[in-house]
């Protein structure tokens, strides 16, 4: 589905825990999600750290949208 968005000219930052699958289907800007049932965060963290992690993941996604890439590229959110 994200490939269709890209084909239409929209850059897509894909947040997914399963980056090998994303790479195999040739998604181009892949942001490492935490885990399949909770890609944008970690429920085992205290609420404020979880929120900070989520901001970092989204910030990384925005950076990915600005990045020039030539093929499937994985962006890892930094430890906030």
């Amino acid at each position, binding site marked *: *589905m*994200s*490939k*269709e*968005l*890209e*084909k*239409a*000219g*929209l*850059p*897509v*930052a*894909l*947040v*997914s*825990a*399963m980056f090998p699958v*994303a790479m*195999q*289907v*040739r998604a*181009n*800007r892949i942001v490492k*999600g935490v885990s*399949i*049932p*909770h*890609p*944008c*965060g970690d*429920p085992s963290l205290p609420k404020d750290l*979880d*929120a900070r992690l*989520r*901001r970092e*993941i*989204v*910030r990384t*996604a*925005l*950076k990915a*949208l*600005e*990045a*020039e*890439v*030539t*093929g499937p590229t994985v962006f890892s959110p930094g430890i906030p």
Partner: protein
Amino acid sequence: MTTIVHIVNQFFAGLGGEDKAGMPVGVIEDVAGAARGLQLQLGEEAKVASTVYYGDNYFHEHKEDAMKAILEAVRSAQPQVLVAGPAFNSGRYGVSCVEVCNAVANALGISCVTAMHGENPGIGTYLDFANTRVYCLPTAETTVGMNDALKRLAKFAMRLARNETVGSAQQEGYIPRGIRRLEQTDRPGAERAIEMLLKKIRNEPFESELPMEVWDEAPPAAPLAQVKERRIALVTTSGVVPWGNPDRFKTYRNTHWRKYNIAELKELEPGKWETVHGGYNVAYMNQNPHYGVPLDALRSLESEGAIGPGKLYPAYYVIPGNQGSPAVMRRVGQEIAADLKKDNVEGVLFVAT
């Protein structure tokens, strides 16, 4: 008497090489070039009523006109079957053969057969179309294999003309189109598996029942300069929807998508949203929908200035992604893309589970 039309490019029509690749569509009544070879193989069984040719470049540069002319020429000859190529390793020719076959099969309802080398780019197009009426036979890389290719094309064309049932790709020797049909065999899968494993252990040849697939490249969309000045939208397959599931999403195999308003919201309150998805443990997402729709983080970045004011699209798009057929997901992707572009969205944050 079976009637056949043969599609060739300008070179194989005997009209010239690369310098003539800009030739428009033309029709030769009777046979010319490679079509002569095809007629020889067909003998008395069938007649090649006409040879339709075009310049490789012309076809691709004037596709609409070319197709129109080709379809008209084929239609007027009223053949029982169409033959195109063989294209060997010639890329532009191979792709055009497949495109012509696909168009003729759909418009006129007749079966078509073409031929080319396994690495010809035309094969990719052939797999994309997966047209049950279009077949492609494998050939050698160069015209060294011409006689052999024409012989096999003639034979296959006659079977199609006689409306014979065509078996599987493995049985018949054509290049599979990736259409997998459910059938019963004479032996249980467990037995076939043990036999296959033993062959593999003994280094004996075996045939896998499911070939590995390689996805094609999609060139990346251009990056956004200054993302904080761009309109960004969120799309998700996590299945987060308003409580009560007002648009009746199923937990798997959905075929429709929706967008839900987030314009006035600073965050998603748990209890006002629920997760409809059969493919993962939704407990976390239900407790905190931000794991799939990170609105709190987006608003926070907005107040920091990392996302421009008013630049976050006022709705998020969702389709629960469990077991969605790729064909459906492609269509959904196209529809959402159209909707986003209509509203001048420039980039997408896509959260997948």
